[in-house]
């Protein structure tokens, strides 16, 4: 084919191999890009056809509203994963922030309540980040241990009681006020996700995050402050978890110390991984995470609308996760 015509022009060098390598790599890259969008689109279309209730604005906004906290936490979790970490403490941070906001809101202004809740998230993230980078303890263990500590704290604060937030004047409005008939929870989430996705894809910080997760030693020798970058991703993750907790406390009118928990941490992780972000670090995108989270939500919503046994949801979700991770490993191996 082109091989012979090309060698007339110039002696065959590795340039040629590179040129033909382009096609294969482009294909692979575009798969990564398109990865989750195509199944998402197919699912969306299938649901639109099979369920008359699906394609209603109310249903779609409802899905987004329900997923607001998960989307926020997953957007920040993507950064943690890309930087080579993992954060399993987001579920309990979410609950701690939610109950704290609820408790403080009873006696103080909601502004203070929310500010303190977010500060708690920041602090948790900082502790996670410092333990992981300075004391070099694996992020999996660090954040797992932290999740117990945080949940314990939340239980202590609430004495195990349900914290009612619906009665606090103004608190509910935080996440449920509507603008253009879309609730503020969705607006906040949209802004947060877009900011974090751009942070990862278009800023120097994002490049450093990718470098730190892709090859920490190479990044360090190239002059990247790997430790600082990793800590920042954990701080953002803690902040996002706290924001999610406050949004849900406001949206739902009540919150428990063990709302969220490990279940939420794993749902977030599932969304990120289904979105094609590599669990090995060094690769990922905030946009695809958002689609991944919504993909899982659509499966749940679709099953509900179509009246499928909800137990199937778990099974299907599990299989999808396996496929997502399998594809990631496969492309990694193919690249070697």
């Amino acid at each position, binding site marked *: 084919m082109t*091989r012979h015509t090309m060698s007339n022009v110039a*002696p*065959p*060098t*590795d*340039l*040629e*191999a*590179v*040129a*033909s*390598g*382009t*096609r*294969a*790599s482009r*294909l692979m*890259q575009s798969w990564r890009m398109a990865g989750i969008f195509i199944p998402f689109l197919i699912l969306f279309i299938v649901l639109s056809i099979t369920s008359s209730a699906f394609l209603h604005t109310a249903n779609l906004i409802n899905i987004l509203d329900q997923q607001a906290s998960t989307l926020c936490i997953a957007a920040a979790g993507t950064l943690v994963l890309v930087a080579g970490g993992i954060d399993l403490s987001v579920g309990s941070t979410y609950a701690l922030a939610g109950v704290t906001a609820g408790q403080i809101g009873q006696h103080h202004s909601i502004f203070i309540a929310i500010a303190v809740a977010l500060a708690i998230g920041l602090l948790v993230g900082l502790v996670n980040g410092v333990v992981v980078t300075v004391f070099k303890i694996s992020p999996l263990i660090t954040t797992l241990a932290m999740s117990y500590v945080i949940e314990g704290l939340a239980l202590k604060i609430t004495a195990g009681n349900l914290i009612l937030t619906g009665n606090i004047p103004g608190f509910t409005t935080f996440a449920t006020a509507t603008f253009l008939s879309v609730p503020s929870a969705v607006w906040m989430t949209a802004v947060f996700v877009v900011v974090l996705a751009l942070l990862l894809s*278009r*800023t*120097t*910080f*994002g*490049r*450093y995050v*990718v*470098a730190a997760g*892709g*090859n920490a*030693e*190479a*990044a*360090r*020798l*190239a*002059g*990247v*402050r790997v430790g600082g970058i990793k800590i920042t991703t954990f701080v953002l993750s803690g902040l996002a978890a706290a924001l999610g907790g406050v949004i849900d406390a406001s949206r739902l009118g009540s919150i428990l110390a063990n709302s969220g928990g490990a279940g939420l941490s794993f749902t977030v992780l599932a969304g990120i991984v289904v979105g094609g972000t590599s669990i090995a670090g*060094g*690769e990922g995108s905030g946009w695809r995470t958002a689609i991944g989270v919504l993909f899982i939500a659509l499966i749940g919503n679709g099953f509900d609308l179509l009246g499928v046994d909800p137990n199937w949801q778990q099974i299907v979700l599990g299989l999808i996760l396996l496929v997502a991770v399998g594809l990631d490993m496969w492309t*990694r191996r*193919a*690249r*070697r």
Partner: protein
Amino acid sequence: MDGDHRTAGAPGDDLVVTGVSKRFGGVPALSQVSVTIKAGTVHALIGENGAGKSTLGKIISGVIEPDEGSVVLGGAPLHMRSPREAMAHGIVTIAQELAIVPSLSVAENVYLGAEVATGGFVRRREARRRFRELAQRVGFDLQPDVPAGALSTADKQKVEIMRALSRNASFVVMDEPSAALSSHETAALHHIIRSLTAQGTAVILISHFLSEVLSLSDTITTLRDGHLIRTVEASGATEDSLIEGMLGRSLSAAFPDKTPAPPDAPVVLDVSHLCAPKVEDCSFVLHCGEILGIAGLVGAGRSELARAILRDARSSAGSVRLDGQELAGHSPRRAIRRGLVLIPESRKEMGLLMGRSVRENISLSRLDLVSRAGWVARLRERREVAALMSKTTVKAADMGLPATMLSGGNQQKLLFARSVMCAPTVLIADEPTRGVDVGSKRAIYDLLVQMAQDGMGIIVISSELEEVLGLAHRVLVMRHGRISAELTGPDMTEGAVLAAAFAETSAS
């Protein structure tokens, strides 16, 4: 496990590769290659990176299956789907990346996958006895109970060789066996290869080192671009004829002309009495425009010295002055900002983000130059990267390609492009041409010379003696963490370097 389970081939049979083709994702890596490997000979496969020699080696050793053609042993075509199946035919590989389990002992590594066992229980004493026997037979001095991870690269290679021998291999494929070895370890390896063939084992040697190929091989097969160029007797070949076959043209000269800096050139780097782990009391100066070579055996502390200069190792004493000012702090970041850049010895582990694009790899160190308030200006970045790529002759069809898609030489040039972007006053290049093909080597030498002429001070650390001697204006030889000799002008000879590298007491 003994050789009695071999399903095809008897000792003395030749290995015949006929009409083998292999494509990777539509890209032909090998086209219709036929080679006969005679029992008990050293058969070298040479070619530039990407010529297909490693692919051919992998097909012979069952790591990958050919799309067309077959590997025939003793008249019967072999169908090998894994290295384990190849091993059953007496074909063993010693790969470029060593397959050692670091936490297992040396003996356990040797018998890995073929444990000396009864009913699933490992017979440790018997394994150790057999290990000693084998070690004696090949003349290796290895302790069976040491964790293999603690060994030097050369010793790890010995473990792999012993593993091959313990399986009664009649064909051993060695992919760049000496790439990570220092010269005296290489000499030991050559001795082993000769003793293997003396015992009737054939060695398929894949190597970049033409002098090694010429001195060891009986037969040499040259590949270019996946095609067989020719198979010749080593006795009738010369380095020039081999290079000509590999490149399809002759290479004018291996090294560019030296243009030493004037003797009164200002000092850019002043290292005095530096002590760090594996570095003891090292002092030297580097001048503007000078290329300083650092030679020595692997493990002599050359890379550690580089790290210590970069202030990336806990130095216990001494000072590093860059442009007359003390280089304080302890991070590569600080050093880069001050104008001292390191190209680390292993580009895959310490240099590049292999899965990321050419563009991202080049701009990583100085993203601040192509960004505003933390926002990457993509157009400016692209323009800057394109300029750097042409300056450092990086060949890539697209700067969006991941680094893995590039040849070894071009990957190395990415690191040079990154360094040039840092506009350093001092560049330390640790093993700048390791695993790089002949054509790219010359391009990298040219780059180094050009950078020196532009006024940079350059330190080249290399295990290849001729590289150090061919490039450097002055050579430091290291031994046991100390600088054991400084050689200039006519004193820069292979003999002098080797003497200083090995000398026990004389030089220090």
